[in-house]
């Protein structure tokens, strides 16, 4: 399934949050959404998830308008992983992941549900914790459980808002590899990232947002240019092979 946004704009309380964004998230790709703080990445992802209605423009899922789709059908086609989840969930790991099957409550069998939950448990490496209460987990473990909940939906489109922010490097790599495998099965993944090295390594394409507008989209090597870092982030970079390191501020006024 392909998720498209068409000249999407949003203004809330007089602030122009998104401006004329047209892009698509294609099956088989991991699209990285990057940009400075306040660029509108999360807002854009929320619009694509059907949580915010755009002022103008449309969101299309395989050509069908997302906002006129029956909610349950939309729930099966699109999984959303927010940045911050509720603080304490008193349920077991397995029960939380099983919530991801709620959109399938009228279409899937109990066996299909159980298989999807088990698979999600395994891919995030939480099988051993299945019956533990989520309250007893560390921040990283809880993040993986919530990721597994989103994976258990088995939706053709997955939207994730900074899924690796709370993870150590090993776990972050694991999760990014997971997204790649997910995409390799033909699913479309859009993910907000702050770590540009991870974005460069794991994303098929990168979309750069700045002040609510799409300023660049394409293959990582085409997008992550010195000019982009200077113009969008206000930093000069140094390169060590493929790795890009933000090195100094271009203009202090930009940031402070």
């Amino acid at each position, binding site marked *: 399934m392909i998720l498209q946004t068409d000249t999407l704009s949003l203004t809330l309380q007089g602030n122009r949050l998104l401006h004329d964004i047209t892009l698509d998230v294609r099956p088989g790709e991991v699209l990285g959404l990057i940009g400075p703080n306040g660029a509108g990445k999360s807002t854009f992802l*929320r619009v694509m998830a059907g949580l915010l209605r755009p002022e103008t423009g449309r969101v299309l899922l395989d050509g069908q308008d997302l906002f006129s789709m*029956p*909610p349950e059908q939309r729930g099966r086609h699109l999984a959303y992983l*927010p940045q911050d989840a509720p603080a304490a969930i008193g349920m077991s790991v397995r029960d939380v992941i099983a*919530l991801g099957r709620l959109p399938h409550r009228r279409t899937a069998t109990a066996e299909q549900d159980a298989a999807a939950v088990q698979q999600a448990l395994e891919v995030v490496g939480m099988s051993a914790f299945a019956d533990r209460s989520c309250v007893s987990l560390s921040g990283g473990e809880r993040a993986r459980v919530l990721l597994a909940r989103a994976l258990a939906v088995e939706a053709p489109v997955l939207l994730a808002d900074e899924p690796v922010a709370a993870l150590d490097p090993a776990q972050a790599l694991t999760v990014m590899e997971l997204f790649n495998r997910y995409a390799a099965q033909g699913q479309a993944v859009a993910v907000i990232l702050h770590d540009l090295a991870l974005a460069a390594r794991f994303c098929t394409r990168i979309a750069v947002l700045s002040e609510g507008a799409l300023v660049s989209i394409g293959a990582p090597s085409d997008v992550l240019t010195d000019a982009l870092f200077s113009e969008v982030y206000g930093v000069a970079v140094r390169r060590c092979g493929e790795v890009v390191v933000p090195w100094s501020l271009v203009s202090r006024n930009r940031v402070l």
Partner: protein
Amino acid sequence: MSRYALTVAILAMLVLALAILSLAAGPAGIGVLQGLSDMLQGRETIAATIIGQIRLPRVILALLVGGTLGLSGAALQGLVRNPLADPGVLGISGCGALGAVLVFYTGVSAVWAPALPLAALSGAGLATLLLLALTRGGTLVLVLAGAALGSMSAALLALTLNLVPSPYASYEIMHWLMGSLSRASLHDVLIALPGLLVGSAFLLGTGRSLDALTLGEDVAHTMGFSLRAVQWRVVIGTALAVGSGVAVAGGIGFVGLVMPHLLRPLVGARPSRLLLPSALGGAALLLAADLFVRLPVSGTELQLGVVTSLIGTPVFFWQVWRLRGRPV
């Protein structure tokens, strides 16, 4: 048999046993089965009258009012994601009682009987709506708003009864504030039954939505659940169930707080799994409490709400103790 099914089965048997015991308990030594069969066959014996007019209405109301209190507590806790939510603690029952008192003592309900439950459910519904508008303020705001609503309704209720020229005013205040089934009649059952049943149906249907809400409003929405829809279901269900119960039994507190708390270790924290067990547990608790107040320990009968509060307040303290240190 799963743990859930086992818990439900045991609770159902407990409710049945308590109901039978409650039918059999009383100062008049009559045969329960004899009374029931006389009643069903339309024979006007003493046993039939005592069972049909006195004990059966009381048992039915204890069962249904307790059940709906447990159910609405579980649903409210799931909706606001807060273990302190309860119709009594949050002042919903109090506002319902105030509504009932206003139509009862102005004589409106004597002219038109359905006015009593309607006024009570309006009071309960308004209180629930107000609380829901304040949920975004977090635990502290919710509980403070509940305390304010409870105190306000209690004060207005007492004021209303003091203005009524009745020699029994203070007894009446006790009845409405603490709750009692000692005057339960067949007429009460008929008045309260529709609201109790329809309200329960509304609340029992919220399970999956409440489950989805544990992941937050955004994720629930992306999974196809509308927060607004489930909020309305809970508000309407609570108003109907709690309002109708209050109209005939007064404001019985803490049943909805206690049952989900006691049952979570047995059936897990999934809101949908708590609804039915909490309803059965609430029914059992109120049947048992009503049996207890009928014990001839003192000259007069205890108020039902005194017993449920004595059981409930330690649980309330325990919940507050667990929440200490957490940001509110």
